[in-house]
Structure formats: C-alpha cells, structure tokens
C-alpha cells in the first residue's frame, strides 16, 4: 500500500521538535539590549529632518525648480522683446511721428481744460511746419540719390575714357584693320606659292611647310585668331601656329584658269588665289562663287558683278608689284 501525499504532509507537520536545552532562555533574557525609541518623536524628527524631506522630494523638486527658472527667463525675455519692438516702432515713424509727439505733448500740457484759439492755431502752425520740413527732407534724400547715381556714371566713364558709342566705333575700326592684315597675309602667301612654283616647274607645293624658304611664320596667323600664336621658326610649326587652310595639297599647276583657291581664312572668310589675288570675305558672303572640280576649289566671279564692275562685297587686290617677303 503506497503512502499518499497527504500522509506525507501530515507526517511532516507532526515532525518532532527538539527540546531547547536548559538555561538557553536565561541566556537569551540576559542578552536583551533594547534601544528605547519614542516612535512619535522619531516620526516627528523624520518629518522635520530637512535631509530626509529633501531626500524624499528632490526627484520631483529639481525638475520643477528648473522648469520655473526657465519659465521666468522666457518671461523676462518676452518683456524685453516687447519693449524693443515698441522702441523700433516709435523710431520707424520718422520725423512726422516725432513732430506729432511734441504737438500731442503741447496739447496735453495745455491742461485738462479746453485750449484757447491761439494755442490751437499755434499747434496747427507747428504741424504745418513739421510737415514742410519732412517734405524738404524727402526732397533732399531724393537729390542725394540722384547725385550718387551721377557720380557712379561719371566714374564709369572715366575708367575707360570713351563713351559706349566711341567704344563701338573703335572696335569696328580694329576689326577692319585686322581683316586688312589678314588679306595682306593671304597675299604674301600667294606670292610665296608662285615663287615656289617658279623653282618647281610651275607646280603648287604639296604642303604649306614647303614655303619655309619663301616666307616667314608670322603671316601664317590671322590677327583676329586669338587662339593661335606665330611660331618662332618653321621647324616648330603645328596646327596651333597656322590659322589658314591650305587647299593646294592635291597638286596641280599655279597658272590654272580660272584661278584656284589655295588659302582660306576661317575667321574672315577671305581666300587667297593661285594667281596671287585675294578675295576678302568671299567664303562667308558668297560661298556660291567657290566651285569644286576634280577635288580642287576654284573661284568664279559672278558675271553680273563682273559686267557692272562694281562688286559690293568682295574686293580684288593685286599683289604683282609688292614686296614678296616681309619677314626677311
């Protein structure tokens, strides 16, 4: 027969209790040491003790104190901001407002009673005077602004020394001078080609580099081509030192008719012909005058223009009687 859990618990509850030895109670009584404490006095002492009070409430008091301090600071700042706004508003009213203040002060100083007619007239006169002064101040401000504007214009004019119209005329003259120098360069290049042809059975040079014995490097750069500079010698020439296109690379003779286009300026559109002539601006103004034949470019002067003998744009320049080599 198995023992039940209830029987186990009952047995445990009925466990024998060892008897205390004799004299234990006396020893326990003898060692009693009580510290008499008055509970009310202790409680009141606890309540009045600032350390215990603070120790209990400081987690709540500290944030509250900080919040109150912040609120006070914000309130003081708001008051100061309001005073400043009022000051700014009174100052922004200008002389009119400033004039109005003494008028109001005069009215107030007249007393609580009704002002006399003389005082009212004096007030009106002073207000009119203040208004007139304000108008004068405004006119002076306007004159000062106009004066400043004129000073700025004078300073701008003296910095360049010329008026805009004069600057435009000068720029136009400079451009014309550059175009003339470009045409002169093309003319000297044509002379150089013809000189080279005399030594080579009338043929045109296959490359512009073949002209190194006939002409200098300065004529290879158009004056209006600011992106290129003249080379110091022919051995250092690159595409950065030559503004003109050489169109005679396909060979041929220099005495062909109609005259063949050997050089072309991409800036001005001027062309240099195989007979030494130069047509200024033809490539841009009359591109139809340039005819392509057998891989070569020829110039054909319009018949109408040749019959009338008054070409409007292109101007034919002869080089037969000029010095062939300016750089030497």
């Amino acid at each position, binding site marked *: 027969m198995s023992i039940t859990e209830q029987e186990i618990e009952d047995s445990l509850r009925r466990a024998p209790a060892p008897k205390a030895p004799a004299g234990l109670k006396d*020893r326990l009584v003898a060692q*009693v040491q009580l510290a008499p404490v008055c509970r009310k006095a202790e409680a009141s002492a606890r309540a009045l003790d600032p350390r215990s009070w603070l120790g209990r409430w400081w987690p709540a008091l500290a944030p509250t104190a900080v919040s109150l301090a912040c609120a006070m600071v914000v309130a003081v700042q708001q008051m100061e901001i309001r005073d400043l706004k009022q000051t700014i508003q009174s100052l922004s009213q200008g002389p009119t407002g400033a004039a109005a203040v003494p008028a109001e002060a005069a009215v107030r100083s007249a007393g609580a009673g009704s002002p006399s007619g003389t005082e009212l007239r004096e007030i009106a006169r002073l207000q009119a005077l203040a208004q007139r002064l304000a108008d004068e101040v405004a006119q002076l401000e306007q004159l000062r602004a106009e004066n400043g504007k004129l000073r700025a214009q004078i300073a701008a004019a003296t910095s360049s020394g010329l008026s805009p119209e004069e600057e435009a005329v000068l720029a136009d003259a400079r451009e014309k001078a550059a175009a003339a120098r470009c045409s002169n360069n093309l003319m000297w290049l044509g002379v150089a080609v013809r000189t080279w042809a005399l030594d080579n059975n009338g043929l045109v040079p296959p490359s512009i580099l073949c002209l190194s014995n006939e002409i200098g490097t300065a004529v290879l750069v158009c004056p209006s081509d600011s992106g290129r500079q003249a080379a110091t010698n022919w051995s250092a020439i690159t595409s950065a030192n030559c503004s003109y296109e050489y169109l005679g690379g396909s060979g041929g003779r220099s005495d062909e008719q109609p005259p063949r286009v050997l050089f072309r300026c991409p800036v001005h559109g001027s062309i240099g012909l195989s007979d030494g002539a130069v047509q200024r601006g033809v490539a841009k103004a009359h591109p139809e005058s340039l005819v392509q034949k057998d891989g070569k470019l020829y110039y054909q002067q319009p018949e109408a223009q040749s019959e009338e003998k008054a070409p409007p744009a292109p101007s034919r320049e002869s080089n037969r009687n000029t010095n062939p080599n300016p750089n030497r």
Partner: protein
Amino acid sequence: MNNSLNQLVEAARAGDQTAAVGLIEHFYERVYAFLRRLASNEADAADLTQRTFSRVWQVLPSFAGRSSVASWIHGIAYHVYVDWRRGNYPTESRSEAWWSACPAPDVQPDELAARADLAATLYASVEQLEPDPRESVHLHYYQGLTLQETAEAMGVAVSTVKYRLRLALDHLHKKLDAAQVSGTDCPSHHSPH
C-alpha cells in the same frame, strides 16, 4: 495572537524589557527547534538561537509590521543560519536514529508504533534534499509557517516556495515508495537479527 504579538513588539520597541522577555518565551523554543534540525549539534543550535535574538533586538526599531512577527523572526533565524552555513560549517544529515529519538508529542503510541520507521525514513529523506527545498520544508511543515510567511522569511516569492515544496514532496514520495517496496521484498529489514 497576531495582535498580541504586535503589541509585544511595539512595547519592546518602546524599551519594555518585559515585552522582550515575552517575545523570547513565545518564540525561543520554535527558533531553537528550527535551528537544531538544521545545525549539526545542540551547541551550534543554541549559539545560533542567541545570534538570532541578538539580531532581533538590533533590527527591532526598523520593524515596520508589513509581515507577521513569526515570519519576521523566522526570517532572521533563516538568514543567521545561512550566514553560519556559508562560514564553512558543514551540516551533517540527521540520521533515522536521531529522528526516532525525537518522538512527536502529539502522536498516539499506537500510531507511533505503526509509523515510526516510515516517519524516521521520511525525516531522514528531508535532510537529503537540496538546501532550498529542505529549508522550505523546515519552515512550512516543521515550523508551521504559512506559504506567505515562509516566502517572507526566505525572501522569495510565494510561487517559488510552492515550487520548492512540490519538488520536495515528489522526491519524498519516491523515496518512501522505494522504502516500502524494499521493506515488502525483504521482511527482515525492520527486524534485524
């Protein structure tokens, strides 16, 4: 009972020596029995009892009355015992002969004759439990504390006490069943030659 004990405590806090003696008379035998079952000998149990009451007088001003007086004093005794046990004082298990020499006062002679062997085995098995379940059994069953008082004395939750007691009862149940089976198989177990 609780009110009278609380009045004794209040009087003792106020410095009443008679009230302190009343507390000693009410609790010293229970405390001694509790410590004697756990300690190895009478001298240690008496010493621990004196330490317990010395500690009671020290902490008496801080007693707030949130627990019963019994659980409070048993808690002090329990912690005094734990401190003493941690001080490298090995405890020796109470043998069945020791338990047989401690007859329960409220048990009838015929019942005692019938259950003496089984009870001695039961109490000896309690001593073989792990410390926490064993001390829970001591406080709850031997000392008669409620589950709440036991939990307060040990400083743990009531659910923890229930769990420890459940472990202890299961272990004891198995032990007793094994002892009964071995006694049935070997009739000469309880009648040595």
